[in-house]
């Protein structure tokens, strides 16, 4: 493993609470959410792709493996990073008619920023990205 390609600060696996939204500061202005499950670990930048909310303050559902942003309630799949649901489509349903500048049938292409990593003994090293 070429350590130049990875953030220098590792994440200690033993310090992660399982099935929990762990917030880890990797320094270098990068905070990540780490979710340790029985079948793997997900490392996600702590920025909601919708409006920039703190995913670390979101709700994690173990059963569906989803994370809900605390700002607007958008729900994402932790395993794939894909956008699943915007609950506001129901809440504000009767006002969501098409207008000149609002196209409700347009599907947003939001995706969680999942970071690649390598495990070395009990430490997780996060691969650097060009831009997060």
């Amino acid at each position, binding site marked *: 493993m070429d350590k130049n390609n990875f953030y220098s600060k590792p994440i200690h696996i033993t310090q992660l609470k399982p099935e929990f939204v762990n917030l880890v500061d990797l320094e270098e202005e990068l905070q990540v959410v780490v979710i340790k499950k029985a079948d793997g670990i997900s490392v996600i930048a702590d920025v909601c792709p919708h409006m920039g909310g703190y995913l670390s303050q979101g709700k994690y559902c173990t059963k569906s493996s989803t994370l809900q*942003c605390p*700002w*607007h309630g958008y729900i994402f799949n932790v395993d794939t990073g894909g956008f699943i649901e915007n609950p506001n489509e129901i809440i504000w349903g009767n*006002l969501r008619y098409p207008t000149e500048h*609002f*196209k409700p049938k*347009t599907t*947003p292409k939001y995706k969680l920023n999942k970071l690649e990593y390598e495990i070395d003994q009990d430490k997780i090293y996060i691969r650097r990205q060009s831009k997060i």
Partner: protein
Amino acid sequence: MNYKFSLTYELDAPIEIAVAAYLDSEHYIFLHKDYTDKYEVLHHEPHSRVITVRQTWKLFGVSMGQVYTCEYVPPAQFKNYHVKPSPWYIPSIHHLISVSTDLKYLPNPEKNTTISILDVEVEMPFWIYPFRYLIQKAIKKLKVEKDAEDMDMIYRREKLFGRGNNAGYLMEHQFMLYKDDYVKYYGSLK
């Protein structure tokens, strides 16, 4: 009896961002979850700027709320009035007083900030009048706390995307109240 007061202060955000945060209704029950857990649009006329909503919250495990009318006056004025308790059978301050608010945002070009002016009018029976300052204090506290939550969001977005960047609100799939009006006034500032 009638009691009026105003709250005026400066929001450290360009007006296009302050207005976007107000019209961005998708955050009402998530970011402001401590104050509201449910919003329902009870009535609206298509393409009008007036809606009737029911806003609900829980107090000691009991669900309670209020029904009121919201009116948007472009580009940056927001009125709330006809506030009624909901459900009517749960005791509420709104059985005793009637509150109307008129919020105006004005640009402060020198500092690229927003002046927020909230005019509040409270109708109350004479025996509540001695407590008018307590009512004023409660309304002010609620306004300041919710503005602080909005400012936390605004500062975070400013750090990520730059000051005054409202591009996220302008995307065609992004819902906000009265979006066409918003785009008309603030859609091409960048």
